């Protein structure tokens, strides 16, 4: 069975691009556009890797991690995506439990490499 990736991102444009990318790379894909939706999707299905946008309309993406940890549904790895290349937000993501912090837009080769590495 192929690994499942949950894309948490509020821009439908970016979600669509990632959906095509991950589906073509052979993964199962699920999507969420808000913190609430991400918690719901992450709890109802087993997620192997979560691609997490930090700025979401109803809060910080990091809240998703906290909620999934509380209900025992943490994905194997969470890769944070941020538009800010600053050390403070980087540290916050790592402290919240993200395995990697990637600066948007991540070159697709790098993104697929990171996912593969965390699934091993």
């Amino acid at each position, binding site marked *: 069975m192929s690994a499942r990736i949950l894309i948490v991102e509020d821009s439908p*444009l*970016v979600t669509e691009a990632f959906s095509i*990318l991950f589906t073509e790379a052979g993964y199962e894909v699920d999507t969420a556009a808000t913190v609430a939706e991400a918690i719901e999707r992450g709890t109802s299905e087993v997620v192997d890797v979560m691609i997490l946008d930090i700025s979401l309309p109803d809060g910080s993406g990091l809240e998703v991690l906290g909620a999934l940890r509380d209900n025992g549904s943490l994905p194997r790895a969470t890769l944070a995506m941020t*538009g800010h*290349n600053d050390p*403070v937000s980087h540290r916050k993501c790592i402290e919240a439990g993200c395995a990697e912090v990637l600066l948007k837009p991540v070159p697709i080769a790098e993104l697929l490499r990171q996912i593969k590495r965390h699934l091993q």
Partner: protein
Amino acid sequence: MSMSDRSDPAALKKRLKTLEAQTKEAQRTVDELKARDALKTQFLSNISHDLRTPLAAIITHAEILREGMLGDLNTKQRDSVSGIVNGGQQLLDMIDEILTYVRGASDQVTLVRTTFSITEVVDQVRLLNQALAAKKGLTIERLNGDDLPPVYADSDKLKHVLGNLIGNAIKFTPEGGRIWIRFTRRGRNADELVVEVGDTGRGISRGNHELIFREFAQVDASPSRPHHGTGLGLAIARKLVELHYGTIWVESELGKGSRFFFTLPLTATK
């Protein structure tokens, strides 16, 4: 103030009142300008973030196509799609430059200082720019520095400064020219490092030496100018150097190349 004002207390009082009113008015104008400047900064920040998202989608889609994930492309198709990726990347770099400027303008830039070898950082930036320079037949040399002690600074910010200076040198130096990086030490204990980025390019007239470090300033700002950019590169470089308590300046004459200098404290003075 006239002689009659000095001898007439009523006139003096009136004059004082006028001055007070004028000072208040001036302060109001300053406050309003500051508020407008903050609005402009916020607008730039918002618009830059909003531009980044669709651009990220464009680049990702184009990369998926270029990598043949949706089927094989012939050479012409791949070249064309590569053009979309490269153009998108260039646009993204410009947006990032605006964001860096905005953070600097609103004092959101914090330095993460470590001790490191400046020559290694220079060599990394040289390497990054090698392909671009080679396209124009330019050489980028580091003339000295192997014996320098480490610097205590923010290496990422320093890379940004060097990247901007070397990028400009590549942009404004005609084919076959030279770009170099040279270090000198100054100060009582030779505890200040001067980094020079020089080129054999078209040079900058003396009257524009100050202008080029101002935000949004370009010596040639006409729509038909041959070199486009945000006009923020040197303003950002200055901000980042000043955060390190350094200074940045240029020595140049039209037609005689340019030498940009900036200073950094060496480890011993941290």
